[in-house]
């Protein structure tokens, strides 16, 4: 019998119905993957299961009894734990304090020793070296994800709902995550796993539910659906070639960098980017990819020589970089890319306001630019006055792309072009990147998604511990080769060098 299930659940926000008669059952000892494009209704389902929203119609059934959760904490008290995509961690508190937040051990005086000990045990189980006394604010993003997972484990969950847990993890950490999921499954925990990574769904899930426009369009057991089949079911049409065909870059270098060093992060990196080329940069999270890009465009202080079209340029600030024809699209869309509380127009023109008037900003010209960008980048907004934060992830990314392209840069560095974005939008963005290259611009793509780097790039540089570990091109661009370089493994024996 299933622990927790939705029976014929519908949900409407005002006049808009976002879920239509959804049936979903979570069985003990099973990983149930929930996939679908952004806006398909995944997060609504997670919120209903986690007690954060009530269904408009239909029933939630827990242990065979219909239930209505009063709140998230109420659901949690009954063993249903949600790991959110946005971390719910207090950044000034220690790891141990966060794990036990809200249910601290001890009486009037807290039992610090016990909390620290139990936290250490949990973290050890997760194979991490995070100290229970570390402040959350000092941890890397993947480490924070591991703390979130530790926190969920400490709740003795019967049902665990995970929203894209692997999105920010490195290769090694993803391995640990899978081990933990296997262990929890063996213990009889029911897991709902949301992910955009179809390879991971194929690998992990015992059961797959595919959502499209708020309806369940497909339910399958492990092995019944290929990755291709999942993508087709999600999008509702056949996906021809997912990645655009490769281009043929010109021989001359648009950008050449020699000896770029960002103190403590990037050491002596030299690279050449050809005109019309899409150059991938792969590497583990923390290998210095983002720091390299930020050093290059003046967001971090760096030393080294940079030439654009053969001419040496001096880049001390992002402004210098923009003047030299460079643009950088950040990986952190929500915190560094867009003003979520401002409208689309303000966001679009923010990096190039001087284009819209010397003294008075010409809002009509801005509106025209927005209308054009909405069309060129296929930004789907309910109305042009809405806030950027209300757009879906994919549309936010398209808006960010439009914003980055407004100064008409010749060299574009895109960090994680498709993080947390649905399949359909991914494909649009890939096609767009290729189009930029075929127009004679040059693009550097930094990505943690192996298939993306390989599918999109003409050539791939691999970084490890702040240095260039190697370069692969043509047929040598395989996942295996890249992982070897990224991990510092040299021979086929799989031993670390």
């Amino acid at each position, binding site marked *: 019998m299933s622990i927790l299930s939705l029976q014929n659940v519908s949900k409407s926000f005002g006049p808009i119905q976002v879920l239509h008669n959804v049936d979903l059952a979570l069985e003990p000892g099973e990983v149930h993957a929930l996939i679908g494009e952004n806006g398909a209704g995944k997060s609504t389902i997670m919120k209903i299961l986690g007690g954060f929203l009530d269904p408009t119609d239909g029933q939630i059934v827990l242990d065979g009894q219909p239930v209505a959760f009063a709140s998230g904490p109420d659901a949690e008290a009954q063993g249903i734990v949600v790991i959110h995509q946005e971390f719910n961690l207090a950044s000034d508190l220690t790891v141990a304090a966060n794990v036990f937040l809200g249910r601290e051990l001890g009486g009037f005086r807290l039992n610090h020793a016990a909390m620290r000990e139990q936290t250490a045990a949990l973290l050890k189980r997760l194979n991490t070296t995070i100290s229970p006394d570390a402040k959350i604010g000092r941890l890397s993003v993947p480490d924070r994800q591991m703390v979130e997972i530790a926190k969920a484990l400490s709740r003795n969950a019967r049902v665990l709902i995970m929203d894209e847990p692997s999105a920010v993890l490195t290769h090694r950490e993803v391995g640990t995550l899978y081990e933990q999921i296997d262990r929890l499954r063996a213990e009889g925990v029911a897991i709902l796993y949301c992910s955009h990574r179809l390879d991971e769904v194929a690998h992990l899930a015992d059961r797959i539910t595919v959502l499209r426009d708020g309806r369940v369009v497909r339910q399958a057991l492990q092995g019944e659906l290929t990755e291709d089949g999942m993508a087709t079911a999600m999008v509702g049409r056949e996906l021809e070639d997912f990645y655009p065909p490769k281009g043929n870059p010109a021989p001359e270098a648009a950008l050449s960098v020699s000896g770029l060093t960002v103190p403590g992060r990037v050491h002596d990196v030299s690279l050449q980017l050809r005109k019309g080329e899409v150059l991938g940069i792969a590497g583990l999270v923390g290998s210095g990819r983002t720091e390299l890009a930020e050093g290059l465009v003046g*967001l971090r202080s760096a030393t080294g020589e940079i030439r654009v079209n053969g001419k040496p340029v001096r880049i001390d*600030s*992002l*402004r210098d*970089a*923009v003047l030299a024809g460079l643009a*950088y699209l*950040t990986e*952190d869309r929500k*915190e*560094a*890319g*867009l*003003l*979520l*509380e*401002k409208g689309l127009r*303000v966001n679009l023109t*923010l*990096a190039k*306001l*001087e284009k819209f*008037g010397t*003294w*008075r*900003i010409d809002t009509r010209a801005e509106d025209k630019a927005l209308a054009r960008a909405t069309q060129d980048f296929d930004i789907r907004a309910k109305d042009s006055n809405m806030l950027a934060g209300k757009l879906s992830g994919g549309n936010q990314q398209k808006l960010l792309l439009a*914003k980055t392209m407004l100064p008409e840069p010749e060299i574009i560095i895109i960090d994680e072009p498709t993080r947390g974005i649905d399949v359909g939008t991914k494909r649009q963005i890939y096609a767009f990147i290729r189009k930029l290259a075929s127009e004679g611009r040059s693009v550097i793509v930094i990505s943690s998604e192996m298939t993306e780097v390989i599918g999109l790039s003409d050539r791939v540089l691999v970084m490890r511990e702040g240095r260039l570990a190697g370069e692969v091109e043509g047929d040598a661009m395989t996942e295996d080769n890249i992982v070897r370089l990224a991990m510092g493994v040299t021979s086929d024996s799989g031993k670390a060098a």
Partner: protein
Amino acid sequence: MKKPDLHLLGPLVALIALVVLGALLNSAFLAPANITNVLARSAFIGIIAVGMTFVITAGGLDLSVGSMAAFLAGITIIAMNAALPEIGENWGTILIGMGVAILGGIIAGLVNGLLITQARIEPFIVTLGTMGIFRSLVTWLADGGTLSLEYGLRTLYRPVYYGGIGWITWPIIVFAIIAVLGEWTMRHSRFGRHVEAIGSNDRVARYSAIDVNRVKLLTYLLLGLLVGLATVLYVPRLGSASGSTGVLWELEAIAAVIIGGTALKGGRGRVWGTVIGVLILSLIDNILNLADLVSPYLNGAIQGVIIVLAVVLQREKRAADER
């Protein structure tokens, strides 16, 4: 085509209600003399509050403006008295005084701004420090007493506060011009857009090739300049300055900004709102003085209630917007 700004509507309704209330309670309320008086008194805080709107919108704060005004008034008076024997009892001396006030304001703003942007100290801490420093300096300059402008100069300078065009005195005119320029700058200039972007999320601003430190520094410079301007208008009113000049002006200015709908955490600036906020605060004071209903000693309490109420109402408005 354009939706009216609902954030302005609340304060505006409150202002109109106060005017109606004032008119009902005392017939002298709407007399030109009283209106001139209220507006002229609003002008000092108003001019400062327009500058404060930019500082707060960019995510900053300045607690030092009241002390700064007192200090600037002090050095202005000293400079004019010192220049009197050399230049004589004429407008040259007064222009020197005005120059000292404005330049002093810009330098004071520069000090605040550089400490905040270059030394990377919290605005609250920096301006709490300079607030004490300016206050102490003016008390020291006055040797614990009062600095007074020479009688002749005072007579000559007086019309800058009391004169004007008809019953509209110069402080009112200057305040109006500053308010219009301020609103225009916030709404239509690149600087205003950058200020809002920085207050909304300074990391996004930095990643959009905006020189965040420069813009932040400029907001403090602008505020310093406006404090200097307010001082130029204030000195002829009494012709003196002391350790108790401009006490609590910083709080009144911040309160006016908040009542007007500018978010204290930054990112959303409303210069018109600030103007309305200043007028609301002055009107409460004026009505309590004219009417015998409530003791004028309770002025602060009523202003306090209004500030808290304004923020609560705005938050509910926001919550409704987000639904």
